[in-house]
């Protein structure tokens, strides 16, 4: 696909930049640290490679910003675009948090109220089969949308419609990310392979 290859290129460039930045800072790093850095730079590269400002990308960036250690990396990576985007993302994060809090409160109160309702409903045994099935289906859907919200970054403050859209974007970019990383890894392996052969010889 045209767009996916373009995306891949951008992602790769940014990722390499990020790796360079983070590796130039410290000399020795733990394995886990290294992994985290790699992943972080990959994520941020992914988020910024998206030209359209999707909300999940903003959420990713802003979450990374929170972590003080990583802000340097982030800001350097994002470069000139950063001020606007970061501002946006920080504002978003704040509003998101507020919304999430309010929603939680609401949910708790509704849940308690709903418990009473459910008890009442169960008493009325007039629940037909189809209703039962649909309620079960609805519950399943709700559960799964909750899970999906947790998975997609920044997804907690979205309604279903936009959640699905964000999920689509996110899936696409994840695919790209995985592809690029895989090929990088494979290339590195080949290099090492050759090296080893040389050494053995």
């Amino acid at each position, binding site marked *: 696909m045209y767009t996916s290859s373009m995306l891949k290129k951008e992602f790769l460039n940014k990722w390499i930049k990020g*790796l360079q930045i983070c590796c130039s800072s410290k000399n020795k790093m733990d394995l886990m640290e290294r992994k985290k850095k790699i992943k972080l730079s990959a994520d941020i590269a992914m988020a910024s490679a998206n030209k359209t400002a999707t909300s999940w990308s903003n959420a990713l960036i802003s979450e990374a910003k929170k972590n003080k250690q990583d802000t340097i990396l982030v800001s350097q990576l994002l470069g000139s675009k950063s001020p606007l985007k970061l501002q946006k993302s920080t504002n978003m994060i704040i509003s998101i948090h507020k919304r999430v809090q309010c929603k939680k409160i609401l949910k708790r109160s509704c849940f308690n109220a709903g418990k009473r309702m459910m008890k009442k409903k169960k008493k009325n045994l007039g629940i037909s089969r189809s209703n039962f099935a649909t309620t079960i289906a609805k519950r399943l859907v709700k559960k799964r949308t909750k899970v999906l919200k947790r998975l997609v970054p920044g997804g907690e403050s979205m309604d279903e419609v936009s959640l699905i859209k964000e999920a689509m974007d996110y899936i696409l970019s994840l695919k790209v990310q995985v592809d690029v990383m895989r090929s990088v890894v494979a290339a590195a392996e080949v290099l090492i392979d050759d090296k080893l052969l040389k050494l053995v010889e």
Partner: protein
Amino acid sequence: MEKDGFFNNEGNGMGIPQAWNSIFGMELETQVPNCFVNSNWDNSMDQSDPFESALSSIVSSPVNSHSGIPNSNSGGENMVLKELIGRLGIICNSGDISPQSCIVGNSSSNTSCYNTPLNSPPNLNLSIIDHGNSIPRNHQFPHMVESGKLSRVSSNQSFKTTEFPIPIPIPASDKKLSRLSLIPDNKELDSSMEESSLSEQYPNGETGIKSQSQSTYSNGRKRKVIPKGNGIETHSSTLSAKDSKAVEEPEKEVSDAKRSKSGEEGNGIEKEKEEGNLKPTKENAKPEPPKDYIHVRARRGQATDSHSLAERVRREKISERMKFLQDLVPGCNKLTGKAVMLDEIINYVQSLQRQVEFLSMKLANINPRTDMNMEAVLSKDTHASMLNTMNNMDALAQPLYVMAHNGPQNPLTSMMHHGSNMKSSQIDGFGEASAFWGNDLQSVVQTGFSQNHGPSFYGTMGTGQMKVEL
């Protein structure tokens, strides 16, 4: 279904389902399939003639058996006909495609066959509105045709202006349908019915056309309540009530979906709410609409307050997007239902995320010391070969001997081997790959943790060839 039977036989020049025969008379057999098979009928001279004759014969058969009409008005009508056909062809091509109209659209020429007669002399009864009366047998097919045609026509506003320049004397029995195609307004399913049924009152084709054009012009974006519509609606609704509701609803669903889509496209959008005054179960909507609303219409037999309308719009949006998601997530084509789809999506996202984690871990392991070298390597690569490999999904880049890597370490070797194995398994679904990696991840991590930089460790990974002792 007869309709299906017809479409299946479309490609077959000779076979025509019984319904066609019964409806359209025997003489058409050879002609009809020709015009249907040729989808580019709008531009070719050759086809217009058999087309016309086909049309005329199609139309004439149910009402009368006279077939003398066909080529009588070739001359000027021919040109107009072709023009009309061309426009309709454009409409057909450019109109929104919903699944059902796709079915109809397979023979989009088919419906346009019905459309064109508007311009042409032949008796156009087509009983498309009149299905109840004249064609008792074939209910469903005209429905489909109607929906396909109507929706397609309605999607093109410019068509409005291509009204019949030539008044064509239409025999009394055939006026009904002629108005139908002229409804350029986007949301005019009902008013089309109204107006077509209105036209019943106007035996003269011209005035019928004019009245309709007038009303449509005056409508513009809004829909006028046609006072006569009430009485006539019942007529048409009872007519349609005879036919299967099930067929209607999907039609309207289709047209609804289309409408909501076209509404979203950003033409002037209006919201139409159903008034309780008009029979609430009807589809009619009063045009109360201030602008900048979403055009929605309630379906027959459904609640009409704004909440449920909005709900339905929302649901349609969601299902639309689920369809897109189906394309993204592999293996979701056969699944139906939100819950199952969501489950698949969740699994997919999770596995992708896990893959990213694993890959980053792998990278970290591969280069325990020399990330710098990695960058050097990568930048030297100029990304070109890298991208090539990416594009080909071929994991073997050209060897670069720049790596100043210190010493091979067993985790590396083990990883390489696993990497080669994994490459082959990459082709398969993500589930398998992730499972595979999941199993290996633990072993890899263990070895990775056990020694970061120490070289002399014999991995138990079964890497017979690449054991290195340092």
